[in-house]
Structure formats: structure tokens, C-alpha cells
């Protein structure tokens, strides 16, 4: 009944079908003698994350089957929520799949779906985690509560002995469960689901108890979902029930569990609810770009996308079922119409909008200056905006300069510690990496640097800088000086001069500030040999660097 057919992906046209439906046949691999089809699913379509859901989606899309209706039976089991979980993992929902028969394939799929849900919507179990149990080994009513770790004692899944929570955490620290420990570790109490006899079902989000573990022979499955996010808990439970209730003796039937909250109020889970939305047919049609569809045709298109739709006059009544939690807005329905119609069947129209293009002045000027610098015989380089702390400070003999740099809190390597405050480091690294080039080396870059600035929204500001470097047998100071004069001539600026500076990055007596009017806008000079050494440059270098923004 599920439509799972191992041969299906091999049929011609399967890849195109995936493409049109919006999933991607990413790879076909042979693993352990089995052909595996790796299919990328859009991040919001949890219902397609298992073979059962995906084949149902595709079969409905092809019109080979219809969307099932789910029946939720009255609760026979109860789950009490204790106030003690409030601070650590406040929400729980649960369901029972009665009289279920799993094969090896569907059992594996069941486990895999839980893994996937843990990973994405559960954010590596931090927001949501799932426990599934053999209901026949436990006895309700169940209890969701939290206890100090030393008081928790049970035999965890696939371990041989009974142990306390701290003991099992010591073991888990060394295996694949390590990343999940920190989700609750800082809490004085750990969450726990137990049955009426005190048997531990699970210690979410870390581990289940061994006692209630499910197997191929399990007939009745108790599913509990604990969470920090109530909405996501519901989505996860609906998704699992939606996909696996088809293996129950009465397919698509789920038995509810009554949740008794700490304040005594109760609700029934899973919701498996549908909401009915009414949309204006013409509006739906308009945004999708389909000009000629009738309301009836729109309804048919939506039915292909697992959305039941019926025509009610000018309106389209759309039933959004428990497997389509991705539908938040009319625009999601419009997308489904477009997908069902076929993106590649939508007639193309050119927007009828007359506009006059305006460039950003700073970019326009930058391009003109770049061309002038190239005309002067300099080679353009393109270097990274991120660099190490030392690159903008001690390596340039200005240790205090690091204070002005924007600092990154989570760099994976030292090359991404700060945003550059000068274009020099990249320029010098380029020179160092290109020792086989004919001399002299003449390089330039026109790009942004970033500094802290308390006046702006983020406390930072970009500036467009011009930097040029000469490296040769002689220092070439007069060359970069000549380049400055040339650029100023091209910028039609006469009101500038250079003035000796004691900037430590320069060779003593060979550095100067560039003054525009009365304001310093940059500097030029022969680099100090210690700077060259830091960047592993073996030739004397002269550099020119200034801020282009005053000229914009």
C-alpha cells in the first residue's frame, strides 16, 4: 500500500520527476551491495524525509493515489507532566501506534526518520527529541518529570548494566552521544519519562531505557516527543504518525495519548489536525503566473500537492493537513500551484517597468581609479577581507592597531580573526607568494576595509581604500610617490601634500602622511625591514595606501 518500490528510482524519467517536484536526485551509490538513492529534500518538507512520505508525495503528485485521511482514536494511555521539567525541557506530546507490523525495511526507515527529525527540525535534539517504546513492556499512566542526576538510575539502551545518570554520562562522553549531553548537563535536574512502576522509558534528549526498546516483533509502539518548542514537538509527532500509521492493522489510524499538564489541564495528542483556509482563486492564479486556470483546475493542481481543495464560488477552500506544516501563508499555496502546474510551463513575461539605472558613486569612482592604476603599469590583486590579528597589528609594528579592528568570535583558523583595517597584509602576502615574477613587482588593490565606529548602527564602518605596492631591487619610493601624484592628477585634486611621519611600519625617515587639505587620508613610504620579514618578503618595498571616500 505504501507505494515503496525499490525499482522505481531506476525507471526512466525518475530524475525529471524529482526535478519537477522539487526534490533532487543527488547521487546513486553502492553501499554494502545495496543501491542507495540519495535524494535532497527541501528543508521545510519534514513529511518527505522518509521513503513512506516521499513515495506518497510523488504518487499523489502523479495522481496514482490519493492523500489518506487520518483517524485519531480516543486516548487509552495518559501522560502526566510534572512542573519540575519547566526549566529544562518543558514540553511533551505522545501517541500510540496500535497493531503495527514492521518489516526490516520499514523498521529501518522508522529509525532513520527519527534520526533526520532529530537532526534538522530538532536541531541536533536540542529543540526536539523522540523516544519510541514497546508499549507491551511498560504500563501507564506515564510521567514526565525531572530529577537530580544521581537519583536517576536505569539500564540505558544497549548497555549491560543499571547505572546512575552521572555514570552513564561518563560513558556517553566517549561515544556518539557526546554532543547531546550539553543540552541538559547544565541543569540541576534531568528530564525523565517513567511508567507507573518507575520503569524508565527515556532520559530525553540523550538516551532511551533498554527495557522498553522496540524490535521487529513489537506490536504496539508508544511514541513520546519532548521539546523546548511546543510547536515543533507537534510537527514532529504528526510527521511520524503521518508516515508510519499506514503499517497499523487499520491503516492511517493513530491512538491518542492524554497529556495531563502540571496545572491539571489536559489535551489530547497527536493533533493530526487540518486547517481550512479560503483563498481568492484569481489571486492565487495571478501570483503563480498561470493566466488561464479555472478554480476547478487550481483545486486539481493543489490536490496533486497533498492539499485537498474544493471550489466555493470565487473562493478556493484548501484543507492543510497534518503532513503539511510547511504551509504558513497563501504564498506557500501559490508555490504549490506553480509546482503542480510545472515551473517550466509558466509563460514568461518581461516586467513592464521603465527605470533609469543609477550607480553607487563610490563603486563608479573605484572602477575609474582601478583603470588608472592599471594604466600606470600596476597589476591588480584581489585578497581576503579577513586576516589574523597580528596581520593588522604586530606584523606591521603597530600592536595597538588591533584595538580598532572588528573581531570575530568564532574563527575556525587564525586567518579569520579580524576584518582587515588595511589592504597591506593581502598585498604583502601576494608579493611573498609570487617570487618568480619579473621585477619590479607593482601591485594594487581597491577594496573595502572595516573599522569600529560607535556612530553607526552596528558600530562598524566600511571605507574604500586604495593600496599600491612596489617591490624590487631598490625601494622604489619615488615610484609610489609618482603614482600618488598621478592619481591625484586624475582625481583633479591639487590640495594635497605629503609630510614626513614617524609611523613605525616605515623605514626610519622614509615614511610620509598624505594630507588632503588639512586632513590625513593615508600614507606612503618604504616598509620597515621587520615588517617585510613578518610577511616573508625578501625585497625592499614601498607602499601607498589612502582612503578614497573623501574623493567620492
Amino acid at each position, binding site marked *: 500500500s505504501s507505494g515503496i518500490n525499490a525499482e522505481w528510482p531506476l525507471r526512466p524519467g525518475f530524475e525529471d520527476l524529482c526535478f519537477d517536484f522539487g526534490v533532487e536526485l543527488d547521487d546513486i551509490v553502492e553501499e554494502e551491495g545495496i543501491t542507495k538513492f540519495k535524494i535532497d529534500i527541501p528543508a521545510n518538507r519534514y513529511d518527505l524525509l522518509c521513503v513512506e512520505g516521499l513515495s506518497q508525495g510523488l504518487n499523489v503528485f502523479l495522481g496514482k493515489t490519493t492523500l489518506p485521511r487520518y483517524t485519531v482514536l480516543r486516548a487509552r494511555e495518559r501522560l502526566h507532566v510534572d512542573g519540575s521539567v519547566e526549566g529544562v525541557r518543558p514540553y511533551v506530546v505522545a501517541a500510540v501506534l496500535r497493531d503495527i507490523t514492521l518489516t526490516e525495511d520499514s523498521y529501518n526507515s522508522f529509525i532513520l526518520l527519527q534520526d533526520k527529525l532529530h537532526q534538522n527540525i530538532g536541531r541536533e535534539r536540542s529543540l526536539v527529541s523522540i523516544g519510541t517504546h514497546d508499549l507491551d513492556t511498560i504500563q501507564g499512566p506515564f510521567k514526565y518529570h525531572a530529577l537530580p542526576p544521581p537519583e536517576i538510575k536505569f539500564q540505558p539502551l544497549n548497555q549491560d548494566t543499571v547505572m546512575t545518570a552521572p555514570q552513564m554520562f561518563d560513558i556517553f562522553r566517549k561515544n556518539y552521544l557526546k554532543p547531546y549531553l550539553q543540552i541538559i548537563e547544565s541543569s540541576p535536574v534531568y528530564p525523565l519519562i517513567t511508567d507507573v512502576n518507575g520503569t524508565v522509558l527515556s532520559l530525553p534528549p540523550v538516551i532511551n531505557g533498554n527495557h522498553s526498546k522496540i524490535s521487529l516483533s513489537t506490536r504496539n509502539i508508544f511514541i513520546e516527543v519532548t521539546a523546548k518548542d511546543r510547536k515543533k514537538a507537534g510537527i514532529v509527532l504528526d510527521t511520524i504518525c503521518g508516515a508510519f500509521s499506514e503499517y497499523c492493522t487499520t491503516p492511517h489510524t493513530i491512538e491518542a495519548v492524554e497529556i495531563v499538564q502540571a496545572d491539571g489541564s489536559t489535551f489530547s495528542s497527536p493533533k493530526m489536525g487540518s486547517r481550512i483556509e479560503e483563498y481568492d482563486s484569481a489571486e492565487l492564479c495571478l501570483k503563480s503566473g498561470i493566466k488561464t486556470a479555472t478554480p476547478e483546475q487550481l483545486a486539481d493542481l493543489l490536490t496533486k500537492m497533498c492539499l485537498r481543495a474544493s471550489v466555493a464560488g470565487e473562493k478556493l477552500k484548501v484543507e492543510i493537513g497534518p503532513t503539511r506544516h510547511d504551509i504558513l501563508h497563501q504564498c506557500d499555496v501559490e508555490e504549490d500551484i506553480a509546482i503542480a502546474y510545472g515551473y517550466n510551463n509558466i509563460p514568461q513575461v518581461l516586467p513592464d517597468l521603465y527605470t533609469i539605472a543609477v550607480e553607487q558613486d563610490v563603486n563608479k569612482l573605484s572602477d575609474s581609479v582601478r583603470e588608472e592604476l592599471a594604466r600606470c603599469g600596476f597589476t*591588480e590583486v584581489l585578497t581576503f577581507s579577513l586576516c589574523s590579528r597580528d596581520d593588522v597589528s604586530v606584523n606591521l609594528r603597530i600592536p595597538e592597531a588591533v584595538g580598532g579592528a572588528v573581531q570575530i568570535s568564532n574563527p575556525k583558523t587564525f586567518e579569520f580573526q579580524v576584518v582587515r583595517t588595511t589592504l597591506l597584509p593581502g598585498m604583502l602576502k601576494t608579493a611573498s607568494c609570487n617570487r618568480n615574477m619579473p621585477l619590479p613587482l607593482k601591485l594594487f588593490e581597491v577594496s573595502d576595509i572595516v573599522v569600529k565606529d560607535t556612530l553607526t548602527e552596528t558600530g562598524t564602518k566600511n571605507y574604500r581604500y586604495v593600496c599600491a605596492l612596489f617591490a624590487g631591487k631598490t625601494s622604489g619610493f619615488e615610484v609610489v610617490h609618482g603614482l600618488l601624484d598621478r592619481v591625484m592628477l586624475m582625481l583633479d585634486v591639487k590640495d594635497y601634500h605629503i609630510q614626513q611621519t614617524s609611523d613605525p611600519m616605515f623605514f626610519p625617515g622614509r615614511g610620509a602622511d598624505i594630507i588632503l587639505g588639512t586632513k590625513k587620508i593615508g600614507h606612503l613610504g618604504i616598509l620597515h625591514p621587520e615588517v617585510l620579514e613578518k610577511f616573508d618578503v625578501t625585497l625592499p618595498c614601498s607602499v601607498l595606501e589612502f582612503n578614497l571616500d573623501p574623493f567620492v
Partner: protein
Amino acid sequence: MSLDQVILNTLSEQKEIDSLIFASENGLDHQKLVGAIKSLLSLPKEYIKAEQKQISVWELTDEGKSFVANGSYEFVLYSAVTKDGILQKELMKMPNAKIGFSKAMTLGWLVIDKKHEDGPTVFRKVDDATDVVKTMLEDINTQKKVDEKKIQDLKKRKLITPVVTKFYLVTKGTSFNTQIERPEADLTADMLQDGSWKEKSFKEYNFKAKGAPITSGYLHPLLKVRTEYRRIFLDMGFSEMPTNKFVENGFWNFDALFQPQQHPARDAHDTFFISNPEMTDASKLPADYLEKVKSTHENGGYGSTGYNYDWKISEAQKNILRTHTTAVSARMLYKLAQQEEFRPVKMFSIDRVFRNETLDATHLAEFHQIEGLVADRNLTLGHLIGILYAFFKKLGIEKLKFKPAYNPYTEPSMEIFSYHPGLKKWVEIGNSGMFRPEMLLPMGIPKDVNVIAWGLSLERPTMIKYGINNIRELIGHKVNLNMVQENPICRLNKV
């Protein structure tokens, strides 16, 4: 005197020069003499005629040379036999004894007493022997005449080998003169001045040689491609957005785009967070709008269910390196919505974005994003498709295909694929979509205004175009500057 002058002088006195004989008589290197002959032949006037000949001469092999130095094997062996004879087994220990012994026996130089009491012993048969082979080899070496029959024997013994030598018989040419008029290599200003170019002869130009390398400046290939993309947008009437703002906050980068706060993109392993300055001052964010964003995330509104979670301003305040230029698009659209009357716009940007992801051959921590958007009343998915065809046609790409995709801030969303004739397959070249109402309506954009947008990276199409497999060969300090200097003019529409 130069060698070519020597040749001319000699020819004025004698009829013919045999280059081999002339070289040996005058102690000249034959190769250099041939060079001088060829240089005379290359002159535009025929100073000399030269007829190429060849002779085969014998040259000593290494073994032959060793005979000249040490004597032939047979002579060496003969010399080793004393008057009282020598035991054969001792004699045979000498180098090359086998050949030497057999030759000496044939020549009748030695005799063997097999019944000697000490064992087989070798005695001299003649008192004196002449090493004829050595003498003949010496003669050959000095080009003296040697009997042809003997030559064949020496050849058989691999002591000599034939070598073909080319030489010239040089005679006067039709324009023979002992005074050479040198042809000019180049036309000079002086020649124009004094008119001498009329009389001068000029060297033939070597059209096969490369021209002289030009010293020049060079623009970076990726930025040349950027220039072309900018031009395409400007041609299409798109205005440029101000993207000189690498540091953004979570609010504009994510929240304004209706990207929930638990979204994986907001994790530390995808995004660079800033530790200093760590936060945006909340008072600097537009208060009214911020409230609307918060309530749309939490409870929906504007026709949306929202995400139903507790939205925290502290997440929105976190400073980050922008993960996309769409943060700027959001600012621009917000600004657009604050105008008294909505005016439709077309906008674009090309600038750096940052991702804290694992680096590989095609991914760096920073890359350039190209983004275009149109905001107008009643835009449809058909308009998006239409403008994408127009845009990509300018890039020389006419075959497009669209795949449904998911993106938190666009719906519908489409991945853009183009058919790559070289790779013979459809490759993803960009992403596109219509911004979600949950993003636009809280900004104050009118309800009937839709915004269509698309984005692609600058690096990826550039790498495909230039066949670069490793992104580090294209940007960063490790690029080979030769690549920059040799990169051709960027013509995107020329496939």
C-alpha cells in the same frame, strides 16, 4: 678579420674553396666556417655560391681509441709473453685475453705447448711483432689513406665507424665582392633624415618569432567579470544598492527576512559572529518595524501562521559578518516602504559575503554575491522567469530550467539551472524567488506589490567560464600573477 671576410678574400684569389680542406689547412673549426658561409648565403645579394657535399669518413670507436692509447689486444698479449713462456691459464687472466690470444695465434705470433710439464704453456713464435692494427687506426685518425680491405676488417672488429660529414664547395656568386654591404635590421629616424633608406638593403623579418613582451598594468579577472555583470544590470535599468557594509546584525541579515532564530544558518558553524563590537544597540533599530517583525515571527499576521516561538531581541542584536547581500536588499526595501507613495524599483548589488563553512576547492570563507530584484505591483512568477531569461541571455545562456526549492525568505522559490554544452548536463547557476509577504508586509510594502529576486555567486560562473577548478587559483594572495596578467578580455556573452 672576420671569417666571412676571410672567405671572400680567399675567393678573390682562388676559384673554389673546399670547406673541409680549408678548415684543416688553416686550423679553423669546420662548424664555424660553415656558419660564416651560411651567413654570406643569407645576404640579399649573391656574394657566393655554395654547393653542399658530403663525404663519409671513418672515426674511431671508443674501443678503437683505446687501441691507439694502449695497443691492440693481441699486441698487449704478445708483449706479456716472456722468453721462457707463460702458463696459458695465467695469460688468459689478462683483460680481453680471449680475443687477443686468438688474433695473436692467427698472426703466428705465439705458439702453445699443451704437453708442458707445468701445464699448457704459451711461447713467443717470433722474436718481434709490429702492432699493425694500432698503426692503421692512427692513420685513420689523422685522415691518412688506408687500404680498403683493412678498413673493412677494422669495421668488422667495431674499432671504427663511418661518419658522414657535410661540407661546402664555395665559389664566387653573381654579386661577388670582397666588400660586404650589411643589410639593415630596422628603419631608423636617421635613414629618414638623410634619405639613405632608398639605397639600403634590409634584413628579412622573421615573421615566425614572437613579438616583444609589452610591459603593462593588469586588471584582476574576477573583477573584470564583475564589471561585465554590473554593465548587464545597468543596461537593464537596475540601480546599484549600497553594499559597503560587511558587518550586519541578525536583525537585517535574518529576522527582517522572516528567517526564524533557530534556523541552522544562524548557527556558529555557518555564520561569523562578531565579538567586538558584539551587539547592535537596540535603540538604533527602527522600533515600530522591529515590533512588527517580532510579532510576525511569533504569531504571524498578514495572513501567516508565523513560527510560534519566543522571538528574542538579543538574537537580532548580534553583530555578524553578513551571510548574504540580501541583508542590504531588506534595508533598501524597508527604506522604499517608508516613502509616502510606493515607487517601483529595479535594484542590484555585487559584493562580498561571508560564511563560516568548511573550506574546499570551491568554497572560501568569503565570496561575491550577485543579486538582482524588481519590486512592482502585481509581479508574478512569470515575470521572474521572464527577467531571468533576459538576464542570462546577456550572459550567452539561453537554455534555462527551473526547479522548486526551499528558501526561508522566498516563496515561491526556484533554483535556476542552465544547460552546459561543455559538461553536457544541467548545472545549477543560481537561486531565485518572490520575497515572502511576512518579509514585505511588516516593512510597509503595499499588499499588491510583489518583489522578485535572484542571486548567484560571482566566483562560480567565472570558474566554469575559465575552467578553474580550485577557487584559490582565482582569488586570494596565493594566485599566480601570471594568471592575472594573461587573462583575456571578459566577454560573457561569447560562449
